[in-house]
């Protein structure tokens, strides 16, 4: 069984490698996004030294790191599930001797590794040449970041599985997936560090899993928090991972019993 999932990860990695235009356009997207936010924040800071507890240098490296982490955890498996459901492929997937959701997660993981090695790695290197940028100083710092990033991947993938599963009940949920993407980008701290939000909003967001997707790993990377606090954040991520697993398993069970194939 483990061999099967390893193979799935490898295959998705190779598929990503095969679509070269995708690869180049991906690099351009990330470069443009980081570049644009860099200037946008420059304009926002104007002459000010500190905003929301961050200096302009800290802010630009935060933005760069947040986007690079996104390269790893981002995937479109909700859309893939929706497509499988619409086309009726999911019926075939269900009778196969593996777990459909784990297969999707494995494929997303292959994609994540690809993006991490080929976008994020070179991307961070290039950016560090242009923007003053501080890497985690110790091996422990790197280890904590990578571990946190791994959990970020699982939580984001679970959120995607959840939105994907809604296709079973709504038949079409493109709108929901689009809204989810915007919500995750905003509430995970990708476009705005959580510390910028007003206090009441921070309190509400503390009860939601989205911060665990981007804000936690980015905080750990910047080294702005002590190692003890980093472990605490990783602990929260683990808790969220198990919490979101519950609705997924319930929805999956119900979905299998009421699957309506709409063609294919």
């Amino acid at each position, binding site marked *: 069984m483990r061999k099967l999932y390893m193979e799935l990860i490898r295959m998705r990695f190779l598929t990503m490698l095969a*679509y070269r*235009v*995708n690869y180049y*356009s*991906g690099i*351009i*997207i990330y470069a*443009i*996004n980081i*570049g*644009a936010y860099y*200037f*946008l924040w*420059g*304009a*926002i*800071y*104007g002459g*000010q030294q500190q*905003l*929301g507890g961050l200096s302009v240098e800290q802010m630009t490296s935060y933005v760069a790191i947040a986007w690079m982490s996104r390269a790893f955890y981002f995937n479109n498996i909700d859309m893939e599930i929706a497509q499988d459901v619409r086309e009726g492929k999911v019926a075939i997937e269900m009778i196969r001797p593996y777990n459909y959701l784990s297969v999707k997660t494995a494929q997303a993981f292959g994609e994540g590794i690809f993006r991490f090695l080929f976008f994020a790695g070179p991307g961070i290197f290039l950016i560090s040449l242009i923007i003053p940028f501080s890497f985690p100083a110790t091996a422990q710092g790197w280890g904590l970041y990578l571990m946190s990033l791994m959990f970020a991947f699982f939580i984001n993938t679970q959120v995607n599985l959840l939105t994907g599963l809604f296709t079973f009940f*709504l*038949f*079409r*949920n*493109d*709108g*929901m997936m*689009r*809204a989810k993407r*915007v*919500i995750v980008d*905003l509430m995970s701290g990708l*476009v*705005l560090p959580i510390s*910028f*939000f*007003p206090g009441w*909003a921070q309190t509400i967001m503390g009860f939601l899993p989205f911060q665990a997707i981007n804000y936690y790993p980015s905080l750990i990377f910047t080294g702005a928090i002590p190692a003890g606090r980093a472990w605490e954040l990783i602990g929260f991520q683990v808790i969220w991972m198990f919490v979101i697993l519950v609705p997924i398993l319930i929805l999956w069970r119900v979905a299998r019993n009421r699957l309506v194939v709409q063609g294919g």
Partner: protein
Amino acid sequence: MRNLKHIFHIFADYLGQYFKTRLAYRADFLGDLASNLISELINLVFIIVVFQHVPLMGEWTRDEIIFIYGFFLVPYALFSIFFGFWDFNERYIIRGEMDRILTRPVHNLAQVCLESIAPDRIFGVISGLIIMAYAAIQLDLVFYWYDPIIFIVLSISGALIYGGVYTAISAISFFSDSRTGITPMIYNIQQYGRYPVDVYNKVIRFVLTYVLPFAFVGVYPAAYFLRKETWYIYAAMTPVMAVIFFGIGLLVWNIGVSKYRGAGS
């Protein structure tokens, strides 16, 4: 001319079909409207939160930037009604649907647009107008009798600029006949017209003005209504850019179609 009338006639037919298919999935239809509203409002959050910390972005106030965002939503909504073929590469090239399109009598781009039409996006126009109205009241903007006409012209121009760029980029699929994944790129870049281009550096400003002229979909035309005289020339150039870029889009598309050999089954 007869040809165009024909397209409009078919357009009406497709519209009818569209609502039938959409209302078959009623929950999704309502969910879609709600989701679109949420994504539009969430983009405002960035502006609002940032301006709690600073009084100005570049030389622009919060309400001016909200106005630009509201304006941007209108041409963007018009664009997404007619150019909804986000999955063009996947659906028409990889799966070979394009072969079917080419047997139809209507112009192939019009046919593709018609098949992916999404009239419910018109609600984007409404939210845009509401956001603009709010900002206009805050800013005490003055309007003249001819402003609505200018507004319509600039909005349609903006939609055509997006349409042209998007058509040209979709046409890349004709040449490469493999998965391209170019769409997310445009999806990501398009939003930069929403912020005043003078906050970016010269290179990005140049790109957003002359290469991927998305600034003409947001800041430049909105600057006219905000009475920013320095940008009047750019605002006036919007329709010209629309004709040029939609023309380029159409040209690339037609060349692409003539090169197309079919890849699907």
